[in-house]
């Protein structure tokens, strides 16, 4: 009896969040699809061919939003982590855990598309450009976070340890970015920037913004789906999860 009481009291937020997230997910998927279609249409058909970079530049419509998202998601993850440490809420740890894989995916996507863009531009798949290098390190930070959480069995300990790592990481990200930039200018490496392209047309900017919105919506939808799965997994022993129609249907 007392067992149930504690769970009710303590896990109230995941329990109320679970159905809420379930209701929101389809909306975010729909928005993601709409923005993606519009964004891709603009990037492929409306945006003009770049005078200096030709058609190859169009990869930036994926590259730049992915890079933005990867940085932004890290901050959001650290934010949840901080809330989790300060208020000791269970949901925050779950959110941080749900965000990490998407953030890593975005970092990887920005690296990959960066390489695609770099080949025609610099003539090499990889250049030790400040942005690329910091994106690589950001990717490592995500992987470290995921690996640490995966290595700790006790979910609460994993949450807390991950939270500290995320906070340490978020303090370090600007320092790392600054140091890499400093290192890059010192060595006069390739400093060609996509954003500094002289013929940056307004339509390009619009395309990028809409694509960024599409990435946003996609990330939110995926993260909510993942957090629902995490809630189910962690709260599997509680009464309310056992009472869920989708859970009962499966066990039968």
């Amino acid at each position, binding site marked *: 009896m*007392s*067992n149930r009481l*504690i769970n009710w009291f*303590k896990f109230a937020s995941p329990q109320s969040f679970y159905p809420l997230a379930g209701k929101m997910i389809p909306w975010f998927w729909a928005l993601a699809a709409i923005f993606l279609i519009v964004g891709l249409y603009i990037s492929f058909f409306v945006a003009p061919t770049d005078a200096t970079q030709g058609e190859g530049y169009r990869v930036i419509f994926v590259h730049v939003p992915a890079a933005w998202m990867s940085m932004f998601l890290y901050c959001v993850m650290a934010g949840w982590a901080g809330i989790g440490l300060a208020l000791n809420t269970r949901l925050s740890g779950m959110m941080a855990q749900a965000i990490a894989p998407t953030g890593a995916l975005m970092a990887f996507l920005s690296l990959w598309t960066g390489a695609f863009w770099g080949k025609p531009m610099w003539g090499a798949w990889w250049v030790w450009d400040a942005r690329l290098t910091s994106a690589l390190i950001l990717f490592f930070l995500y992987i470290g976070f995921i690996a640490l959480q995966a290595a700790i069995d*006790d979910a609460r300990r994993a949450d807390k340890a991950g939270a500290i790592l995320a906070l340490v990481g978020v303090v370090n990200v600007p320092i790392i970015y600054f140091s890499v930039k400093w290192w890059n200018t010192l060595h006069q490496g390739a400093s060609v920037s996509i954003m500094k392209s002289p013929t940056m047309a307004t339509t390009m900017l619009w395309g990028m913004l809409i694509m960024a919105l599409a990435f946003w919506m996609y990330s939110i939808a995926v993260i909510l789906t993942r957090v629902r799965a995490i809630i189910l997994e962690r709260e599997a*022993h509680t009464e309310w999860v056992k009472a869920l129609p989708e859970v009962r249907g499966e066990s039968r």
Partner: protein
Amino acid sequence: MLTATALSCVRGERLLFAGLDLALKPGEWLHVQGENGAGKTSLLRILAGLSPPAAGEVRWQGEPIRTLAEEYRRHLLFLGHHGAVKEELTPLENLSFAAELDGAALSEAEALAALSRFGLRGREDLAVRFLSAGQKRRVLLARLAVRKATLWILDEPFTALDVKAVELLSNLIVEHVRGGGICILTSHQSIPLPNGKVLKI
């Protein structure tokens, strides 16, 4: 005066105990009993302030130990499963380091007296590595003799001790309790000590 109200403890997904109350006045000692995995060690760690309880509160002299923090630890001596005894150091070094960590002044003469009380005379300059398991426990217990703490929390203090050491330790605990101290311990053996409280979990 140590009080605990409505303590509960969750390990992993399992609830070990809930709604546990206890109160100990100076001069009292408590024997915590229970099967393996019942949560004896978890309870002691909660009482020592090492891990937070899932629910409930521990108070010392009426103040929650969370807010007392360092003030509480000044009065506390906790001996866990592991000895906190360094194999590479000698019994004497171990003892003086423990005292310095506790913020207590310990002269070499006092330390030697405590060690000889536990039959370690002549071995005080030998690395602990070369001592037997029972002797290692004795090094640990010598801390009890030198540390002037009011509250002792001892997790299985009688393991790996021979008859003579068990008697020594019992005397030490009786002495401590008679002098107005509080002692909480776990043990699978019955303990030859007078007027103790018993808590079964």
